[in-house]
């Protein structure tokens, strides 16, 4: 890397390590940040209200302590870590928090967040668990309720034009990320999985305009790159829920793998689906968040009547990424107690087998303490497929 690249990635690393530092600065100037914890929160509505969405994240190096006195440990460790940091005051600069029905843990713990945190605004967003015609009608009404609630909090009306503008700027953000993914197609990739995950994590802590600027700068720098930061190795897809820390991907890349694609929440699951422009914005948002985000939380009816057909409609995106990014193996990374993903493991395994992509299934707690155990498994997997 040249000096300019080094300084850009140093800035990203600083924002990553001191997560929320920029938001804190802006909050002191009076900007209103609204925290969210899952990909199902329509960021466009927060932006249209003149507020700034901020993805709250956990910390695998911080033992869960205070959080466990307020929340039972039957909840997934990722979510517990996010909650723990929040109740310890890490995100006290937030003005509010939106929790969607992303999984049962989110629904059941909503009141615990409300009682335990000092924010002035809370909203629970009900998301249908199925995806049929009536679901869209229901979900659009939910989106309008959320819109009204944000209007009340922000003290301003959210016009159709505000929504259209917000949709445009968030789509721009997604397009830039899609362009960054293009650089993963080189062999070895021109951007490492570690760099990209760090950048995307940081991006979701910044105002959307600053996030767009940051991704533009990264695009400029990567275009200038002549050499990959990685040695050529097995090309891997990271499959799973939210990976808001770089440690696992970093470990895989240190052991010689090239992480070049993913389905994770702060990756392709979040950034690949665009919101349609030029039509009723609430309808378009309804379609994006309910149908286009492919998450095991949503039950999709098997219209084919066969197991294979069901697999293809639920996991077809994995097969498509496998082709597009030249995947040679995948890691399915699941948090303990994550019900939506946990139930799907056998079906996902069957799907990987059907597309002839070797799979390593890892179940983990959200803690840096398990890195050694992961290393043993990843080393053997890379050796096996290498």
């Amino acid at each position, binding site marked *: 890397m040249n000096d300019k690249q080094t300084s850009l990635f140093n800035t990203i690393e600083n924002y990553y390590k001191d997560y929320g530092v920029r938001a804190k600065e802006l909050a002191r100037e009076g900007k209103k940040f609204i925290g969210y914890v899952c990909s199902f929160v329509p960021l466009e509505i927060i932006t249209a209200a003149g507020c700034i969405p901020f993805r709250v994240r956990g910390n695998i190096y911080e033992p869960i302590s205070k959080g466990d006195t307020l929340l039972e440990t039957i909840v997934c460790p990722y979510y517990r870590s996010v909650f723990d940091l929040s109740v310890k005051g890490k995100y006290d600069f937030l003005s509010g928090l939106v929790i969607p029905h992303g999984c049962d843990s989110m629904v059941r713990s909503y009141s615990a967040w409300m009682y335990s945190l000092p924010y002035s605004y809370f909203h629970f967003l009900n998301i249908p668990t199925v995806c049929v015609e009536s679901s869209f009608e229901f979900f659009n009404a939910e989106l309008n309720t959320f819109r009204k609630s944000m209007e009340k909090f922000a003290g301003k009306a959210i016009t159709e034009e505000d929504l259209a503008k917000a949709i445009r700027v968030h789509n721009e953000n997604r397009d830039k990320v899609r362009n960054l993914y293009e650089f993963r197609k080189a062999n070895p990739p021109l951007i490492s999985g570690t760099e990209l995950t760090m950048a995307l994590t940081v991006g979701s802590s910044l105002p959307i305009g600053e996030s767009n600027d940051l991704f533009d700068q990264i695009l400029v720098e990567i275009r200038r790159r002549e050499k990959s930061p990685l040695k050529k190795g097995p090309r891997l897809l990271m499959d799973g829920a939210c990976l808001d820390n770089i440690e696992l991907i970093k470990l895989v890349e240190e052991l010689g793998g090239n992480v070049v694609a993913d389905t994770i929440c702060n990756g392709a699951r979040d950034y690949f689906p665009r919101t349609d422009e030029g039509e009723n914005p609430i309808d378009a948002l309804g379609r994006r968040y309910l149908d286009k985000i492919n998450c095991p939380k949503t039950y999709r009816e098997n219209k084919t009547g066969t197991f294979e057909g069901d697999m293809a409609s639920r996991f077809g995106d994995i097969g498509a990424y496998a082709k597009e990014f030249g995947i040679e193996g995948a890691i399915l990374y699941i948090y303990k107690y994550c019900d939506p993903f946990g139930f799907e493991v056998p079906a996902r395994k069957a799907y990987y087998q059907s597309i002839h992509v*070797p799979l390593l299934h890892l179940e983990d*707690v959200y803690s840096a303490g*398990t890195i050694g*155990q992961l290393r*043993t*498994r990843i*080393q*053997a*997997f890379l*050796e*096996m497929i290498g």
Partner: protein
Amino acid sequence: MAIVLGVDIGSAASKGIALNDQGTLGSYECPSGGDFKLTAERIKKELLSQAGKSENDISRTVATGYGSNRVTFADEVKPDIVCIAKGISSLLPSVRTVIDVGDLYTKVLRIDGNGSVHNFLLSGKCAGGSGRILQVIAKVLHVRVEEIGELSLKSKKRVEFNTGCAVFAESEAISRLSQEVKKEDLLAGIHRALAAQIDSLTERMGVEQDMAMVGGGARDAGLVQAFKEIRGHDILVPEKPHMIAALGAAIIAMENLGIPQ
């Protein structure tokens, strides 16, 4: 001719093998202890002495196992899964499913006749399903771990254990002892419980015959017997099952030098 070394530093026991193109020149095992680097040096010294060779005669060393990165004189470090596959294939080429019962994990491997791994599965992150429980129970009963296999085979009335957790099993064993249950019946119960856990792992991996059991756990006749009973078919056990990863590491070292085995 020069020799190669395969060194396997496990979480409980460390093993080493010295080979040349004529065959095995030395073989050594010892507890891993707290200083893996020192243990590795000790193994090297012992193997050289058995082989009647000096340090300069070592052409290549491949290290494996939990503490492999502390084998500072190794030319290469290989995952133990790869070494186990290589080692067992050299001795029992018909084997397609390998169960390695170690102190830290139990591993199930699917391999081909050339010693390449096709898939693998490890037991969970806690000690449940690993060989650790055998050491724990030996300590509780005040018998040597080497003796528990034969003792277990004498059981006429196996105790049923309801837990696969090593910690719970220990407290359950202590409470059963207070009810004057015989040692052999207790051991047979522990072996059955561990074998059932290993069987569940094996089923999840999927089985192709022949099946072999290796690792320190495979030296325990009681465990092998319990596993055979649950599986309902024969399980191959090589002569020194705990040395398989070290042997595989040494074979890989030979292959690296282009010497066929």
